[in-house]
């Protein structure tokens, strides 16, 4: 299943074993098994409603899973296992683990009452206890990295969609995450703004960041991803190297989906 070229002995960054999730009577995830090695970039593709976003949100425990096991960096998400009994983690422990995972949303979700700079330094100061000076310095570096150094004092509404999303990526990076989750980061953007955001993500991948990306950008998947997973109806239909899945899909459903989006 895991076709990436990383060493298999190392602890994978994300290890999902038959993950199930239901909302009421609707089963959204019907047994997702997937391994993301440290440093790998994995793209989840598939039609809307296939469970991609839900799975992503399970990884940082924004959603609780109902069955299966989900590990991030070797540790169970949301629970502690002792003598074959699961204990729910306290809020504080859940928060500490979330702080190590960056997340970028389709709708950016920047804090509108804060400037770009304040958006970046809020969590490092109040969650990680960094000094304001250190956080500000790091934030300036990150804003420079996403090409928005001069927008530090702008409010989100004064920025374009693409700029907002890049600030949102910088905000997630400000927490020094070991894993980044992207939930359709370019779907809400005007076509001409998509490129800037993808460029930032590509740069991040080149730096060795482990990334799980839900996307409809097949070009990005082909160029950057180590593995592509095609999901439909809450299951993984097909997975493998981007060239294999995108150019030569084996499964009928994958073929149908790709014929529509490509």
């Amino acid at each position, binding site marked *: 299943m895991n076709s990436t070229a990383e060493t298999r002995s190392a602890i994978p960054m994300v290890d999902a074993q038959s993950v199930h999730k239901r909302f009421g009577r609707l089963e959204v995830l019907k047994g997702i098994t997937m391994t993301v090695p440290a440093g790998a970039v994995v793209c989840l593709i598939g039609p809307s409603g296939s469970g991609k976003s839900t799975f992503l949100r399970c990884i940082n425990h*924004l959603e609780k899973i109902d069955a299966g096991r989900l590990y991030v960096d070797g540790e169970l998400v949301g629970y502690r296992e002792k003598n074959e009994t699961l204990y729910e983690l306290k*809020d*504080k422990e859940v928060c500490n683990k*979330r702080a190590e995972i960056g997340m970028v949303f389709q709708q950016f979700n920047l804090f509108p009452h804060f400037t770009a700079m304040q958006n970046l330094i809020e969590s490092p100061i109040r*969650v990680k206890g960094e000094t304001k000076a250190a956080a500000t310095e790091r934030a300036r570096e990150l804003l420079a990295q996403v090409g928005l150094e001069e927008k530090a004092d702008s*409010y989100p*509404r004064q920025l374009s969609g693409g700029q907002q999303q890049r600030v949102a990526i910088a905000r997630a990076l400000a927490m020094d995450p070991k894993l980044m989750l992207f939930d359709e980061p370019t779907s809400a953007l005007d076509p001409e703004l998509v490129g800037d955001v993808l460029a930032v993500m590509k740069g991040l991948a080149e730096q060795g960041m482990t990334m799980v990306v839900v996307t409809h950008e097949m070009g990005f998947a082909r160029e950057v991803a180590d593995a592509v997973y095609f999901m439909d109806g809450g299951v993984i239909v097909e997975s493998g190297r981007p060239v294999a899945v995108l150019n030569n899909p084996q499964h009928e459903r994958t073929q149908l989906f790709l014929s529509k989006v490509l």
Partner: protein
Amino acid sequence: MTHAPSTAESELRTPGDSSPDAPHGASGEAIRAVPVRHYWRWVGAIAALLLAAAVIRLFVLSPNIDWDAVREFLTVHRILAGLRLTIIYTILSMALAIFLAVLMAVMRMSVNPVLSTISWLYIWLFRGTPALLQILFWFNIGLVIPKLWIGIPFTDFFLEADTNRVITTSVAAVLALGVCEGAYLAEIVRAGIQSVEFGQTEAALALGMKRSLAFRRIILPQAMRAIIPPTGNEFIGMLKTTSLVSVIAARELMTEAQNIAAQNFLTIELLIVAASWYLLVTTVMTVGQFYIERYYARGSSNRDLPPTPIQRMRTSFRRLLAPGGRPAGGLGATGPGGVDTIGGRPS
């Protein structure tokens, strides 16, 4: 368009286009046209003015209103003391109401069913009964609970007092008004909190914030924008609602006005005195509300803030004085120029 258009093209010209062969207004010249006259508007306005004048005349020239007495009692000591108490009651009961409202709004949204039910019951009870009734109830609470006591178990600390000595008229007034108002405000606060997108909570949690931190730093500040305007309204409403506590003789403005009237039978005159003070204070509060709302609108929109009345006046004044300026656009006109002077820039 620089080239001469063909006939077919000129027929397709959109209104915004101009071309050399257009007969008039080709160079973007301002339109000068005779405006339509709205005669019926004038008729309506004159009729309304006459009616208003008649009503005012009826009061001003009425032989039954002693205007000298009104002027005299406007600043009499008892009235001013009553006004002072009215303002104190307003502020104290609103403070109590705001505290209760935030507490109840948070409890109402709690996942703990006991807390949310208690909050629901509070709002149900105090919003569902008349304020006047609640005032009388608090005033007479001593009939139900004759003694109040407070003690710490396993220590000697114990205090006891007659309810009627603790719940004085003033305390009853503030408690009744504050608790009643809190029920309304709780719903305003809850609506404000719920108006903040869920994505904000999610983003905060994803950054590792605890729920309490996310609420305090991310949700509440954004909710304020929705909470402030109706709260200002409630503040003004409260100033007038304090007049209800005259039923327990709380010595505020309304009580005093009625007490004086009971002695000298100048009923209408003292009602006019009280009305004047209520109007004056609500006017001041309305102005204050304008500035507070303007402050919280910052960052909520990338447009310029609306000019304050003072800025508007200054702009008009400057335009009148400006050499070569067109006074026609002067008084009352709030063109784009009105926004220019926000930063106090000399024009």
